[in-house]
């Protein structure tokens, strides 16, 4: 009994950390520009396919493919932001929603065209294969790696938002965009960089997701709902909130699948609807 509880907590935490990587960029950019970007998981898909392609076709080592996935996600999101997204910052919610859903449809079709509809796989280094034992329980090495890497990224993000000049600009823009502009902060530029960083983190998340939850052409749709739940529950522009919401979601999803498999994803949606009705701005959101 205890072993299964610890196992579910561990797996749920690993899953939650994956969701954190996928969603943190969206949380910050949504907080800054109020831009409803439903295509965020398409950037994750770009990173995932880049990692699969580089390791499979060119024999890159797994650890070298991760930064490449980050760069791929960041590059694609930067190009899209500069060419298309920036025209829609003042558009209505509906227009932003429709436009980005359109991007998701296109990315799903493009992925199916180039990579087919099969599940992709990636070769991880031997030291990440298998599992190790501790306290009489066994833990997957890859999942531990995922948790450690995500926590490191979260710490780096919190540090850069709280301690650097760039982070101060981003925080000012999230809190009050007009005031920040009035003080001479170049919000557009800060947003561009944040957007690229968020896309890059999603790309990294996509690459790390392949070995844990798999990757196929529907990835951008499958994880869209989860990412939106993390953002909406965690509150816009809050890294701590995203981390807590992602961990909560990951653990409750794993627990639901393990203990109540017949309910499917029902529990998750119920938790989300309940939380949103109770606190529409999210657990840690300010507005």
């Amino acid at each position: 009994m205890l072993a299964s509880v610890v196992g579910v907590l561990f797996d749920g935490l690993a899953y939650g950390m994956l969701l954190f990587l996928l969603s943190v960029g969206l949380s910050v950019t949504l907080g800054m520009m109020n831009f409803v970007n439903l295509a965020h998981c398409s950037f994750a898909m770009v990173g995932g396919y880049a990692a699969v392609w580089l390791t499979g076709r060119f024999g890159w080592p797994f650890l070298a493919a991760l930064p490449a996935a980050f760069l791929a996600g960041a590059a694609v999101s930067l190009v899209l932001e500069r060419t298309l997204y920036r025209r829609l910052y003042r558009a209505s919610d509906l227009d932003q929603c429709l436009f980005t859903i359109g991007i998701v449809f296109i990315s799903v079709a493009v992925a199916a065209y180039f990579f087919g509809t099969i599940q992709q796989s990636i070769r991880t280094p031997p030291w990440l294969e298998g599992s190790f034992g501790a306290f009489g329980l066994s833990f997957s090495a890859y999942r531990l790696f995922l948790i450690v890497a995500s926590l490191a990224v979260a710490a780096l993000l919190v540090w850069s938002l709280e301690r650097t000049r760039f982070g101060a600009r981003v925080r000012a823009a999230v809190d009050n965009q007009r005031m920040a502009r009035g003080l001479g902060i170049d919000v557009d530029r800060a947003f561009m960089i944040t957007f690229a960083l968020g896309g890059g983190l999603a790309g990294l998340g996509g690459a790390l997701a392949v070995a844990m939850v798999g990757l196929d052409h529907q990835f951008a749709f499958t994880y869209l709902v989860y990412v939106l739940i993390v953002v909406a529950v965690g509150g816009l522009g809050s890294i701590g909130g995203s981390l807590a919401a992602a961990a909560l979601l990951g653990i409750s999803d794993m627990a639901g699948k393990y203990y109540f498999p017949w309910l499917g994803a029902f529990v998750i949606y119920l938790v989300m609807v309940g939380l949103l009705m109770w606190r529409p701005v999210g657990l840690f959101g300010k507005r």
Partner: protein
Amino acid sequence: MRWHPLEAAFWLATLLPFVLAPSYLSLASQIAITALFALSLDLILGYAGLVSLGHAAYFGVGAYAAGLLSKYLFGEPLTGLAVSGLAAGGVGYLSSHVIVRFRHLALIMLTLGFGLLLFEAANSASALTGGADGLQGVAISPLLGFKFDLYGRTAYAYSLAVLFLCFLVCRRLIHSPLGLALRGIRENALRMPAIGAPSLAHLRMAYTVAAVMAGVAGALLTQTTSTVSLEVLSFGRSADVLVILILGGAGRLYGGILGAILYMVARDQLSDMNPQYWYFWIGLLLVAVVMFLPNGILGGASALYPKRQ
């Protein structure tokens, strides 16, 4: 509100498939049902400005209500249609108390969440709904003595008549003080309560009417095809109807109908195309409409012909 000659011409033209394309009457009936569904979304999205990513919830409730009713109680279609509409309206009324209070991301997430919740509930309750296999044993009696035949003659006449009746209701509603209040909320959600309009009550009313119509559309689909699949509650259906409405032109009575005709005919013509690539063109279309034709086809057309005053 006087009828424009073009409107009369349009409704007369909807009778043409009986003579010109008798082999496409099943498709025509599907189009009428989709148009009704899009019209119901237009009430809340186009006129009241409530974005919904889960409108299929009410369509699905209506579809399952009609199916279960015919399986366990009676197969008479007209009563079944009314009861299914009321069932969807009841669900819509209950959820409207929550939904109309929210805006922006929370609204999008809540409508999406309600839709997904119902989908998962129908999937889990497979003893009642048949789950992923669909509901078996739907038996619809003849409509006023006319059987639902293979060619879809009864189906199209039935769907078209229901669409026209609902359209009349919508038309009356849009030009009533309530319709004006809804447009006021869409244009400025803060000012309407400030001038004393009970905005939340207006929104609840519109939301419930829209849910009834979506339920009626769902029930029509069940009765004309004699099957119910889990797909009636899916996110894909919510997204499709949104695309249809936006393509035709939201906030215009004929937007949803025109969008449904274009979308369904295009999908029928391109049905041998792999669905993945069909969605590529839908995505491209969405991007193009948002960028270049923000008010849909009807909006673009009316910009070409300025109104005479």
